[in-house]
């Protein structure tokens, strides 16, 4: 059986020392090993950004597409091979800036994919512009006098879009993150884990300390029931999204792939592509 080591390769991540993304990488690796996955059974599909490089740092299949389009690509991979464990990953700019529309619709579509966002409230790779999750007043290269846009709260948006599995993690709490990733992968449907993953180079506001101070860990909230959507919504409004743990989970959903008319259990990539002449004849008859 594969161990954590099998999910490592010899690439040295080009992240800055201290970057929150290291913990995300390690958590994915640990979760996969803990679940007994084999490296070749997993594909990590990522966007562009510092965070987007993650698909190169985990010893599984990896696809590093264009900026903002990790989710469409990941959904395509899932359709071609429904047996594969598909993890989409990227940054807050990638996922909630340029890519937000794909997120909203991926939620509606509900394929069995796990989406991990490394939310550092900044554009890291392009050197420190504000992101959609940057707070009002936040100063960055593109907001020298303070951000005048309101921040987007991913957890609120995700719930409103009708998500079936919603969790948040924090790079400082790897154990929680590993557990959330495992649950998300096990969940049959679209799952978002939004991870507070500090950018130590460009974001001097949303630091590790900031999150330590401001986050409510739902694991420690007595009686929190993640199957109650109204309570979940209330929580992400009251905490302004600053909470970690499993926020919401609905096990009654049926994933998209199980609802496609005539879709087979054999993954498409293994199916015989030749068309049965009898079926072809029925198709052609329409035009005879």
């Amino acid at each position: 059986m594969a161990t954590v080591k099998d999910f490592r390769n010899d690439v040295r991540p080009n992240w800055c020392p201290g970057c929150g993304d290291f913990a995300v990488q390690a958590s994915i690796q640990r979760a996969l090993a803990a679940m007994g996955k084999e490296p070749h059974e997993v594909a990590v599909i990522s966007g562009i950004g510092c965070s987007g490089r993650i698909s190169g740092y985990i010893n599984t299949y990896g696809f590093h597409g264009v900026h903002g389009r990790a989710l469409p690509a990941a959904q395509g991979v899932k359709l071609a091979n429904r047996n594969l464990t598909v993890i989409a990953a990227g940054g807050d700019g990638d996922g909630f800036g340029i890519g937000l529309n794909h997120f909203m619709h991926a939620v509606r579509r509900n394929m069995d994919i796990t989406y991990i966002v490394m939310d550092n409230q900044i554009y890291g790779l392009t050197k420190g512009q504000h992101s959609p999750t940057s707070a009002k007043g936040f100063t960055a290269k593109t907001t020298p006098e303070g951000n005048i846009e309101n921040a987007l709260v991913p957890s609120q948006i995700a719930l409103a879009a009708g998500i079936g599995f919603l969790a948040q993690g924090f790079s400082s709490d790897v154990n929680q993150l590993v557990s959330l990733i495992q649950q998300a992968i096990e969940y049959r449907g679209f799952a978002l884990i939004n991870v507070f993953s500090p950018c130590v180079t460009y974001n001097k506001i949303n630091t590790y300390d900031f999150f330590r101070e401001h986050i409510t860990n739902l694991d420690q909230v007595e009686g929190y029931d993640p199957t109650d959507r109204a309570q979940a919504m209330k929580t992400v409004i009251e905490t302004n999204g600053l909470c970690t743990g499993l926020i919401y989970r609905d096990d009654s959903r049926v994933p998209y792939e199980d609802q496609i008319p005539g879709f087979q259990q054999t993954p498409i990539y293994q199916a015989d592509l030749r068309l049965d002449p009898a079926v072809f004849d029925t198709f052609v008859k329409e035009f005879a």
Partner: protein
Amino acid sequence: MLEQLSWKVGGQQGEGVESTGETFAVALNRQGYYVYSFRHFSSRIKGGHSNDKVRVSLKQYRAITDHTDVLLAFDQESIDLNVKEVREGGIVIADEKFNPKAPDHVRLFVVPLTKIAEECGSAIMKNMVSLGASACVLGLPISIFAEVVEERFRRKGQKIVDQNMLAIQRGFEYVKELGGALPEFALKPADGTRRLFMMGNDAIALGAVAAGARVMPAYPITPASDVMESLIRKFPKVGGVVVQTEDEIAAINMAIGAAYGGARAMTATSGPGLSLMMEAIGLAGMTETPVVIVDTQRGGPSTGLPTKQEQSDLFAALFGTHGEIPKIVLNPATTEECFYIMGDAFNLAEKYQCPVIVMTDLQLSLSKQTTDPLDLGRVEIDRGYLASESDLVPTPQTEEFKRYKVTETGISPRVFPGTKGGIHKVTGVEHLESGRPNETSPNRKVQMEKRMRKLRGVELPGSVVRTGDADAEVVIVGLGSNIGAIAEAVERLRADGLKVGHAHVHAILPFPKGQLEAAIDGAKKVVVVENNATGQLRHLMAHFGVQHDGIDSLLKYDGQPFLPSEIYQHVKGMF
């Protein structure tokens, strides 16, 4: 007796113009006639003049004519807009209801279409009445409609079927009484051969399923939507899936993901969507992911003329993405070719591991036409260079599979996620053989050259088909659905004793320089016939070094397809 007939039905969009034309066309196709139809419609749902022109002949033509023999008008506007093209002594059949007026050069049959229909059961059957009226004029028995009417209304019960047939009969009889059974309009009988009747989009969808396409993410757009809608109905039978995505960017990226995942994946769109796909097309090129994009061209630029004919996306298809990638662009010209080309498209995409764009134009995509039997046996599936067992890396994998291995041909082995020993990386960033990002100069050169080598020097066989006189003085170069109008013009010119050749281009990338040079070799003059304003194909010839001193353009960019006579006249003037 007529060897061929041009028949047209006109009315307000949404009042059954399309179904009238379709019923007429299908019925005649089933008699063994060759039928070619062209719809004039606009970008709205109901209202506005619309018409459907149907050409019926004993020989195959793939173009509409400039004249009309018989015009069926549901309103005065249809007469006003179309009567000019009705030939001297031609027929206009019009509904009594609007008190129709027509100029003297035509014979007007005023028929109480709506009234008869109401008597038969419902005003909406006026189109059936008009079909009966048409049949009478053309000396056709109304029985030719029986099968189509039966198929169309079966679901609604025998009573409706009978009412419709009655409406046809009453229309027939009414015109007969008016003296409308005109021997000079009688159609020569056809041989009864049953052929197919479909539009290019139908053939593309059929070709795609036959070629093994199983994932099709797409976003609706005229005139591409039928491809998606047709696949949605077929895929459940073969385990495939259509996803109506949130936009075209999602569609192409999902298709790329699916192709990377091992499916044969495609999307279909028109100009605006193609423009939106440019970034991802570059990704497919860089990651060497085979993906097929159908671009059903319509009038541009921008939203342009969404329901009109144009061939103005050539440049965009060839040059639209930033940076440089290998790419293939195919240009089918007929419905049959639409079918078979999908197999080629997927095979080429997987052979060369690059995006393939299949370009049609609105006329080809939407014109329903008689189509030869489609032979599934001719469709081969060749998935290109897939890694064999022995190519795979021993597990546990400590190094990546060389997905971008530098080879002499530039083509590297593929392996799909899920395969043991095949783990590798894929990225739109410049990368090593393993797919790991790498920006060093020497590696960049090697990988760039590897990619570009795949298609260097390649000309796809059959990219140019040369017909007509071998020793032609004038060679007409064309592409796409213009094939029919050009062929017909050539036929007439040669009948005039002129030496004319026709070089039809069926693939513009890799550009068939050698084949085109051979095709125009020796000609005094060359005329490139295109539905666009800037002469894109002609410029491409220059771009890729095809030189000729006497080269000229015949362009049309008013949203209409070429008429054979326009080409005939232009070329005649060149002698």
